[in-house]
């Protein structure tokens, strides 16, 4: 298993190199240069030229690429053209917010999605099955921004239970320690701040989790229905096992394998969805950071965030493969 993980990690290097070359050239193919965009419509050519020189954009692209790659080896992602701050530091500052949101969303999706799938599979075509099918359909097909707006309108504006946006109430600032707002609130003894952070987490988590939970629920239901028709299930039942053991140990365990793939794939997709969710909920994560950077043609930030997303994507797929090995002895043997 260890050598398998090592091999996969080494294979990561060429993948990241290709991503780097593609992103570096793509951002420069998009028309419009950062100096023009940053200064806006009122600027004169002199002002733009002065800023281009200040940002080293007047250097040849090859030279810019060379400097960038050399910098990467020492962990230097360059400086944001907009803020002038180091990109690596800016990403690290925003990463906890994205991780907090997406990991929580996956947990919620798994806790909600899998039991729904199991229950629907054990009662196919029952009322419960029909209702969850309908809800899942809505969950899968409703665009995130619309779901976000509906939730904001219902739970924040109409009922007043939850805040509209943000990460913590501006009146209860949480001193950053780890960057995870809830944890920081607890660590600094700011209970009200921690509670406020929890309240702020609910709506964006719900939006992010909805799609995954719905997909997962339907997926588990269908694979489980297939598995429950297999011979070994009949054997298990014939041995006189309790229904619960049959469903959970034999049925669910064998349906989980494809579900893990789905979770892995959708988790990566969810990071993309985080761009929208973070923007709507004013959530200070890297998805929104990247979106702003694309608007501003902030090359080093676009490159840096894309590399981070690519890395998360590849790491997720490695984790999925490892989970496969844990869940399925046949795969484990092949991994060596």
């Amino acid at each position, binding site marked *: 298993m260890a050598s398998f993980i090592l091999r996969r990690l080494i294979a990561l290097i060429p993948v990241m190199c290709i991503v780097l070359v593609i992103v570096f050239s793509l951002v420069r193919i998009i028309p419009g240069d950062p100096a023009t965009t*940053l200064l806006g419509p009122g600027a004169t050519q002199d002002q733009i030229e*002065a800023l281009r020189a200040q940002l080293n954009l007047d250097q040849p692209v090859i030279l810019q690429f060379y400097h960038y790659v050399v910098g990467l080896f020492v962990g230097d992602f360059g400086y944001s053209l907009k803020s002038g701050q180091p990109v690596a530091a800016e990403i690290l*500052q925003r990463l906890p917010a994205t991780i907090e949101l997406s990991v929580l969303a996956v947990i919620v999706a798994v806790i909600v999605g899998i039991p729904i799938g199991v229950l629907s599979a054990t009662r196919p075509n029952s009322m419960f099955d029909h209702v969850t099918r309908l809800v899942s359909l809505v969950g899968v097909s409703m665009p995130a921004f619309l779901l976000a707006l509906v939730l904001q309108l219902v739970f924040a504006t109409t009922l007043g239970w939850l805040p509209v946006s943000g990460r913590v109430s501006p009146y209860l600032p949480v001193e950053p320690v780890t960057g995870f707002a809830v944890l920081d609130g607890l660590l600094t003894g700011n209970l009200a701040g921690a509670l406020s952070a929890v309240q702020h987490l609910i709506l964006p988590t719900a939006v992010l989790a909805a799609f995954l939970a719905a997909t997962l629920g339907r997926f588990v239901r269908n694979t489980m229905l297939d598995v429950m028709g297999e011979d070994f299930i009949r054997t298990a039942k014939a041995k006189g096992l309790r229904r619960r053991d049959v469903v959970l140990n034999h049925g669910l365990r064998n349906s989980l394998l494809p579900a893990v793939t789905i979770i892995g794939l959708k988790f990566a997709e969810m990071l993309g969805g985080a761009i929208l969710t973070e923007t*709507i909920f004013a959530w200070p994560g890297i998805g929104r950071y990247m979106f*702003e950077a694309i608007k501003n043609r902030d090359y080093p930030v676009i490159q840096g965030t894309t590399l981070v997303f690519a890395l998360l994507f590849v790491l997720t797929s490695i984790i999925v493969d490892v989970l496969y090995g844990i869940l399925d002895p046949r795969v484990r043997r092949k991994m060596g």
Partner: protein
Amino acid sequence: MKIWNGIVMAAVALPLLTSAAFAQEDAKLKTLVVAVPSDPVALEPGTNKAEPIGSEIILNVFDTLVAWTAPDFKALEGRLASSWTVSDDGKVFDFKLREGVKFQDGTAFDAAAVKFSLERTKATNPYVKATFDLIKEITVVSPTELKITLSAAYPAFLSILAQPQAGIVSPAAVEKYGDKFASHPVGTGPFAFKSAQADTNVVLEANPAYFRGAPKLSQIIYRVIPDASTRRLELENGGVDIVQQQGQLSAIAAQDIEALKANKDVKVLETSSQIIRQLEFNNSKTDGPFSNVKAREAIAHAIDYDGLLQGVFGGTAERVYGPLTTNSWAFNPKMKELAPKYDPELAKKLLAEAGINPSSLNLKLYSFQGPLWGAVATFVQANLADIGINATIEQTEFPALRTLQTSGQFDVALDGRQPWYNDPDAHITIGYLSSLANTAMTFRMPQDKALDDMILKAQQTPDMEARKQLYFTIQEEIAKRVPGAYLFSPKLIVFARSNVEGLVVNSAPPLNEYWSVSKK
């Protein structure tokens, strides 16, 4: 058992939380939350490039020597300067400075600090190079007296000194923080910088020792909320106190403004801006249909200006009659009569006189992106169709549109200018001086010695009344040349919770000062 644990925990936590809630209510009344779409850039005069959010924060943290007087912003008043005189040749400015003013770090403000600040901005800020390079010498006469000598007369210089880039910084703080001064800005203003969290907020706290008196608020929180509909919901919900439109055409649609006006918890403050949006011709082009002034006049008469203001903007924009807005101190009232009126029949006649068959014209109407620009373009397109001209709309991303404009690859385009300082120079010189035609988004005026000379003379005439008369003539001269059709000027709109009092919306540039603001 577990349930009991939970109940006990809740009983212990409840008083804690409610006392926190009371503290929160009190803090709320002393705190102003302002929603902004993105992080401010360059929170200090030495690097600020007229980006609106950073500029507004600077004007609340720093003071300038002079400032525009509220509420109509037509005359300058002293801030850190108590008075000043200008020499007859317009090159020497003598300032008397206020005494006893202290920076937020406790150090004293004096003439040396002004010299230090202005020379620093001149050296570090390429955005103001063109104007700050005019400064030949800054002399400290005494701690309260300062002399600035320019290399050429430039009466708009005082206007430049009212800008955020000319804010006076604490020399001691600059020395202490060096490159990091933008993360620890220190000025003499009513609010001191407290903290900033990326993509989250910037917090300012009251400076009780402020020389005009302590502000009524104890803090201002600029909350970064990128999505316009979220900003609206937050305002309606009371999560923020102020949402600014900032003169951007894409910010909030007219129907949203109507809905907010109907909300009794929200008040809508409107004021005229000096922003101009126009349909402009490529005036440098010597061939093509619009090299004939009659054809340009025809287009100017084809547009239903009032229809545009009502139909697309629902009254949130105003009519523009010429190269300056009506609220500019140099606006020539005669322009109201001289401006072309909507008259499609006259337009058709003028086209015929110019020898143009409208159906032979296939115009590409270039425009910025965004739904509101799209609506403006569609409106103009329909007006052109009424006189038989077929136009296709090309909404282009800003940098690409700029390239098209500066390289002159267009016949007609929608464009606009937001002057970054309060002087007619900001519209007239960049927009119409022929030597600047390719250097920015301008009207691309052709070589025209008579007009150019007049523009340069107006730019350099020290006597304000003589200057005003020159701008009057310039406006009429430009109108004769019909370089474009002046479509509208968007109003500056600030949405505030109804308990916010004392806010005056600043018109040029649209940067608000919160010193006088309080919450009921």
